[in-house]
């Protein structure tokens, strides 16, 4: 290849990627942000004030925006009245449930990190890699699993019944929402803290001990400072994720427990786009602030220089006597919690999908998935089409996310400037919820928009694929960048000196060496697409573009079904199978190079 052409291959790819992101991400999100501060073509703060000044949204804090001068008087009256309870509105409630969810995730996640980092037992490596699983699990599927486990006729109440307790009603309570959030985010806490714990250099602890520190003191002085940044990172991420959580709250909490996201969705359904966009803008601003906090925590992570030798692990079971050890007893109890909270919902999902309400075995629900007709009792989505849509969109999103992710990785590994740009590109989608992106796409691409004099209108399916690609490409990049960075620059230099152009070097040397990471990234992106609900539910016009998660929500949302979750669990199980295959690919193929 002519080297003048060759030189522009990567810049051209980077420009194409940026242009794509500009059209399918920044333009839609920008339009949402813009509609919060414009009316017609005029700048105004009215939409913002309408939301922020409404006690429904901001509770007692609304007077800050409506009557700032009266705030001090208000606080005085409140103190005088003896601190009566104060409402904080929708935003307050959203933050409150996110805070509770974060606490629950940390409480459930930390013992897991202790177990994985400090004990050796069969299956430890498997458990460690399973902590990645929630990332690829469709949240609406998990919600159905929770209904199957903790619903009135669920496995949990059956178990309670066996010991003469219950039944408890958890459906549409804050408890089940928080448990589901813990299901998602406790593994994240476990994963990040375990990684930090394993990176503690054992020799530092030994040095502290020889200098006179007790084991507890060495733990406090050497290990804890290394764990805290990881814990902070995990907690902030959990808070962001649960603040923006949508399908779980929608399916398990309903409108009674609406968070900002759920309410935003409801506003769109009621065609109150301006209020929805304003909510989205405020939410995005809040989450951007939180993401900034997260990046600060990331930067705080202690980099231990040089080679590090991990801490030695204890055997979990070391003869019968070791079982009397209080730490091990505690971990045993923890195991029971894990079983109920993590295994329970997934097992229930599968069990319910082959069980009639009467307890008989049935394959009827799976037969339903193949049917082309929409059953009157199960909403209007045709299940077979939802399955094929999901697969089709998944492949489409993959075809877009893979090259985008690869290009961003190539940019990221080139220079320091490149890596900063890439980091910014990768973090932005994290701060924008799927609902906001979906809403923005509706406002711009689907309803039609003017770009450089050309009118651009895309259909729902195209918009869905684009939204999925935006959600998926950061996972490609996060997998590929380390693999690409690990390639010795001199391999590239050697290939170039032997006569290979940049493009040939990429094909002959770099791509084969990052093949595994690329496959893992692809599996991630595919799984993300298959499970994506937030933007899909807005973009799937009518019933023709509905995907499996959207169908799943329609099935659970239809209360006329009563306690029968059958069709939903069957589709949920199918989603679980796709997710599990993706996970196995990520773990087996991707993990091979991690070692």
């Amino acid at each position, binding site marked *: 290849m002519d080297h003048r052409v060759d030189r522009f291959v990567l810049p051209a790819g980077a420009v194409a990627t940026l242009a794509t992101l500009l059209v399918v991400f920044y333009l839609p999100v920008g339009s949402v942000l813009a509609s919060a501060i414009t009316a017609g073509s005029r700048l105004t703060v009215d939409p913002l004030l309408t939301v922020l000044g409404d006690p429904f949204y901001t509770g007692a804090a609304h007077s800050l925006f409506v009557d700032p001068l009266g705030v001090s008087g208000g606080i005085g009256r409140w103190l005088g009245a003896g601190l009566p309870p104060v409402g904080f509105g929708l935003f307050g409630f959203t933050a409150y449930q996110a805070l509770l969810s974060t606490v629950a995730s940390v409480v459930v996640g930390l013992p897991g990190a202790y177990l994985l980092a400090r004990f050796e037992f069969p299956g430890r490596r498997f458990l460690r890699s399973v902590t990645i699983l929630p990332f690829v699990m469709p949240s609406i599927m998990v919600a159905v699993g929770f209904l199957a486990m903790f619903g009135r006729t669920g496995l949990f109440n059956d178990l309670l019944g066996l010991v003469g307790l219950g039944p408890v009603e958890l459906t549409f309570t804050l408890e089940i929402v928080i448990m589901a959030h813990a299901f998602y985010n406790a593994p994240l806490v476990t994963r990040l803290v375990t990684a930090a714990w394993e990176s503690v250099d054992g020799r530092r602890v030994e040095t502290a001990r020889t200098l006179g520190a007790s084991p507890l003191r060495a733990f406090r002085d050497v290990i804890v400072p290394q764990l805290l940044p990881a814990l902070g990172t995990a907690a902030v991420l959990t808070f962001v994720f649960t603040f923006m959580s949508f399908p779980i709250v929608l399916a398990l909490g309903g409108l009674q427990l609406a968070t900002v996201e759920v309410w935003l969705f409801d506003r769109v359904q009621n065609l109150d786009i301006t209020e929805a966009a304003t909510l989205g803008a405020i939410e995005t601003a809040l989450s951007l602030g939180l993401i900034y906090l997260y990046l600060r925590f990331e930067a705080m992570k202690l980099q231990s220089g040089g080679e590090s030798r991990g801490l030695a692990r204890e055997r979990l079971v070391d003869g019968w006597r070791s079982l009397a050890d209080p730490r091990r007893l505690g971990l045993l109890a923890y195991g029971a919690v894990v079983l109920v909270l993590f295994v329970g919902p997934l097992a229930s999902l599968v069990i319910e999908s082959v069980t009639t309400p009467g307890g008989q075995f049935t394959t009827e629900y799976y037969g339903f998935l193949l049917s082309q007709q929409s059953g009157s009792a199960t909403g209007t989505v045709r299940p077979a089409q939802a399955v094929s849509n999901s697969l089709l969109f998944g492949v489409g999103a993959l075809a877009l996310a893979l090259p985008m992710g690869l290009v961003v990785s190539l940019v990221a590994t080139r220079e320091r400037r490149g890596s900063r740009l890439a980091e910014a590109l990768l973090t932005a989608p994290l701060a924008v919820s799927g609902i906001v992106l979906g809403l923005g796409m509706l406002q711009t691409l689907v309803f039609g928009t003017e770009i450089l004099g050309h009118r651009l209108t895309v259909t729902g399916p195209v918009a869905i694929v684009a939204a999925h690609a935006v959600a998926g490409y950061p996972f490609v990049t996060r997998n590929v960048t380390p693999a690409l960075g690990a390639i010795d620059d*001199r*391999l590239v*230099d050697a290939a*170039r*000196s*032997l*006569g*290979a*152009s940049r493009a040939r070097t990429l094909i002959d040397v770099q791509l084969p060496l990052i093949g595994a990471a690329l496959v893992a990234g692809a599996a991630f992106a595919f799984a993300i697409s298959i499970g994506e609900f937030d933007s899909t539910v807005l973009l799937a016009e009518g019933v023709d573009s509905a995907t499996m998660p959207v169908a799943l929500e329609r099935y659970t949302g239809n209360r006329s079904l009563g306690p029968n979750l059958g069709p939903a669990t069957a589709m949920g199980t199918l989603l679980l199978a796709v997710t599990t295959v993706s996970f196995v690919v990520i773990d087996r193929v991707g993990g091979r190079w991690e070692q």
Partner: protein
Amino acid sequence: MTLGVAITDCSVAYDSVTALDDVSLSIEDGEFFTLVGPSGCGKTTTLRAIAGLADLDRGTVAIGGRDVTDDPPESRNAGIVFQNYALFPHMSVRENVAYGLQFRETESDLDDDARVTELLELVEVADLADRDPDQLSGGQQQRVALARALAPEPDVLLLDEPLSALDAQLRQRLRVQIRSIQEDLGITTVYVTHDQAEALAISDRVAVMRDGRLEQVDTPETVYREPATRFVAEFVGDNNVFDAVVGPAGSRATVDGVSVPLPPEYGLDSGEPVTLSVRPESITVDGSGPETNDGATLAATVDTVEFLGDAYRVHCDWQGRTVVVRTGASEPPEGDVTLRFGADDVSLL
């Protein structure tokens, strides 16, 4: 004679750190040329500039009389071997060596397969052709890397510390082999090393570099015996360097009150400050050397002695400074000693 490689006025800076500062070098066709210096001196940058792997801020590079300054690495026909071998891990030994053949027409009338076999035989690893790189020892990997670089018949062979990762014995054996292959092929070779002994042993000419500049470019013998600068004197071998003042006659100088002879050819003016260098093996301890009237005589005390196998390296204390002496005596010197050297042993920096 045509020039193998010509570098003219080259400068390279990384993030405002100057790696190469206005360097010019002419390397003859078929010459074995070595760049030597401490880490960060710019020797590897010079090599990368020749290969087209470093971006020049200024200057030109020519290979075989052709200006390649604006050519990308793949058009320069330079074969490069790195310290860590940089074999493609996903290709077999044979595929590694064959890789460059697809891009270049070689003069050899052999087909690619036969050419690969020929090269693997040349570097004595023909029996490993179907192995993967990770199944090879360091020395074997380095031989394969050499074969790979030679396969497309490059105009210049660039070797970047190729032996540094190997143990001492293998290093010495391989460097002899590299030199003999280079002589057989008559290929212009630029060799980078931080090991001055290696540089002296293997090269036609040596360039000593420091802080991105050339300190001295000459044959190994001249660089060793007549170092041009204090830095070269101290870096190549462990010369004793003295600051002195030229005496009234111009034939002697004074170091801390002790008279030291000067070689006659310099013709220095009285009172001129000079820097002298004396090699450790030129200094005799006690009566072990010929006693001359016009030599220098230093009364010193032995500090530490290192046994080198064929000699002792003796660190002596003379008037608060260390003088290093190398002696072939069968017993290590002890206590107070007399050190002597003659006018011919002194070189002026």
